[in-house]
């Protein structure tokens, strides 16, 4: 019970902090002070208090987009274990639901973008679906590798199974898997080198351009949902990358939260030392991620 409570508090409250840490890291690399760590929370509270402008050409889909996306992401949040704990909801095969809850969210984001009829948003939608259909196989290869290692298709036992002995036995495979998963994490969350979350240049955007017409609380939902998605995929990554468990629940929660912050710093570093890829190079990198995770599967199946 207390674990479920911790799970809910972390998953609801912590995601925007990751964005704050990424922003601070990037600012440090650029020689600036940067916005406060809590800036994303201020932004969200500001957006929630704002009014909304809705284009006359849109239908209910435009308003449903952010809501469905956020709801799907929140549901997915119940399926991922945070650290070596049990997730609130867990059943055999939930990893497939987890993957397709994100797909559902993406479907509604793109449909809402197409609903505006803007040429920019259509372009963004086309890019998003093209790239995500390349990122999806990589995620599945990673999950299948874990299934093969743990013998289950449920996220909680599967991820809790990855402990130090497993790393010793299948280290090479897990390293490949993590590398592929990190690429998917960056791509799915529109980070550099795939997309630049800070740019104002609508012609170069992938995800941001699809939400240009949303404002106020709708936009707040989108931003919060994006932070949550980063948090969940990050949790998946951290669960595999940090195979330690002390046995003391509180120490483990602290270890998990700390690992997430370290991951945010790592993302910030990658964003600072790399430029964005040319858009036509993005599929190549995603295919590379797919190959990495495919080989990790080959290594455990052989």
């Amino acid at each position, binding site marked *: 019970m207390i674990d479920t409570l911790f799970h809910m508090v972390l998953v609801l409250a912590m995601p925007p902090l990751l964005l704050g840490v990424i922003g601070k890291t990037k600012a440090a690399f650029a020689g600036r002070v940067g916005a406060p760590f809590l800036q994303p929370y201020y932004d969200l509270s500001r957006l929630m208090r704002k009014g909304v402008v809705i284009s006359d050409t849109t239908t209910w889909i435009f308003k449903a987009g952010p809501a469905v996306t956020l709801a799907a992401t929140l549901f997915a949040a119940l399926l991922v274990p945070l650290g070596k704990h049990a997730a609130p909801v867990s059943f055999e095969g939930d990893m497939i639901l987890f993957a397709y809850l994100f797909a559902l969210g993406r479907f509604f984001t793109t449909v809402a973008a197409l609903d505006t009829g803007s040429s920019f948003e*259509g*372009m963004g939608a086309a890019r998003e679906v093209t790239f995500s259909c390349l990122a999806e196989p990589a995620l599945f290869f990673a999950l299948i590798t874990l299934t093969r290692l743990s013998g289950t298709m449920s996220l909680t036992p599967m991820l809790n199974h990855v402990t130090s002995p497993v790393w010793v036995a299948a280290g090479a495979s897990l390293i490949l898997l993590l590398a592929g998963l990190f690429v998917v994490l960056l791509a799915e969350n529109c980070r550099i080198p795939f997309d630049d979350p800070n740019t104002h240049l609508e*012609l170069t955007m992938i995800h941001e351009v699809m939400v240009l017409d949303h404002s106020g609380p709708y936009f707040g939902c989108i931003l919060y949902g994006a932070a949550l998605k980063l948090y969940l995929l990050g949790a998946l990554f951290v669960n595999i990358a940090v195979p330690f468990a002390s046995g003391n629940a509180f120490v483990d929660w602290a270890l998990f939260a700390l690992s997430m912050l370290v991951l945010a710093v790592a993302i910030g570093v990658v964003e600072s030392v*790399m430029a964005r890829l040319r858009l*036509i190079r993005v599929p190549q990198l995603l295919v590379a991620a797919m190959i990495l995770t495919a080989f990790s599967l080959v290594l455990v199946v052989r």
Partner: protein
Amino acid sequence: MTPGLLFTQNGSAVSREEIPEHSGERFCETLISAIDGGWRVVSYFGAAEADAVRLYCILSFKTHAALGIMSTAVTGNSFPSLVEAVPQLHLFEREIAEQFGISFEGHPWLKPVRFETQLASLPAVPPKAPEKAGIMDFYRVAGDEVHEVAVGPVHAGIIEPGHFRFQCFGEEVMHLEISLGYQHRAVERMVLGRPGLRTLKCMEAVAGDTTIGHGTAYAMVVEALCGARVPAKAEAIRGIALELERLANHTGDLGAIAGDVGYLPTASFCGRIRGDFLNMSAELCGSRFGRGLVTPGGVQFDVGRELADKLRKRIDVARREVTNAVELLWDSPSVMGRLEGTGVVSEKDALDLGLVGPAARASGLNRDIRRDHPFGIYNVTQLPVETAKGGDVYARTLVRWLEIEKSLHFIEEQLAQLPGGSIVSPAAQLGENRMALALVEGWRGEVCHVALTDGSGQFQRYKITDPSFHNWSGLAMALRGGQISDFPLCNKSFNLSYCGFDL
């Protein structure tokens, strides 16, 4: 040498009677043979006369620092278009067509340039009222999977207004058409009459980031018309200010290019260092953009020993900082991978379109007014011309960096050996019935000012050609066959002026 041209030098004035006036046919023949012989069009414009429009063409020949002038009178409402043989004329012809209602026969693309009201019209031809800016017949590509993307005139960033129309096939751009004119202020009309303090202010505001460039060109025109000699010290200070302007803008551009590819360290550092260079301009004259420094006859602010030493120290610091910031770019493979091969303008296209400035040099064209038609301090100090091959965003970035290095060196050298003496010589009455022309290599490229005076020594026609006027077509070419997502990066690598074009 081509016959039929009046030869002159940069920064000089000629009597209007001496300018050869050809028949339309001879004019066209001379123009085409001059271009074949390696001449280049610097400016081509019309001026209203009693019952005709006289077209003046100014050509440049690199190796002899020669400028050639010729003219023809158009009495009918049409004139043959030479665009097919001389593509670099296409925008000039459109401009004349718009300003005087002359139709250029055979011009493939006779569309408005700035949607301005006509300067004059021929007798028996009623002037046409201009359309609202941006309302024109855009080129369209038809097909099932072809889509059109319209960007602007209101943009997401704080930049000037301009409309861009892309014809895309998926992510690939088949054609980009640029429609400007939103910033048209009629500067050329405003400065007619007797030049004064207000004229200088207008000139400095033609393109705010090229204040020194346009200010110097205007000052050279007035000096040529009244025969004033600029003191040596003033020439040196003008040179320093012009190079500081180049430094500030090039540094800002390198930062903006880095920002566009999402490479933050260089973007942030260059943004700040640009401010340092602007502050050095402020040390010279109290304005970060150099307003009020250049005046006909010299400069308005002296540089003493103490200020020169202080500036040298600051240049030294800035050199170290900008080198560090820019070297991060060259050392990042992901940045290089992003810049190389993006937005290529081939040398042939650059030559045909008549590109100028860093954009032309990046495509391998070796042209620079500071060397080809030296003026002021550049008559005595040579600056090496930096070129690159490739014509891509990388080449335009590299040329900017190489020019930064040379400009830093130039400024240090000039500050160390500033001549003494006065800084301004008194201006006299402007000569009557004369044409003066001045070319200045601003940071963006060649700034051309031409003035025609009437019988009482007043400006009857003043023609400004900003480098952006030559280069916008280069940007459109760079995108052809490229990716639409590369547009912002290509745009930054050209960094053209909207108001300098719109006038």
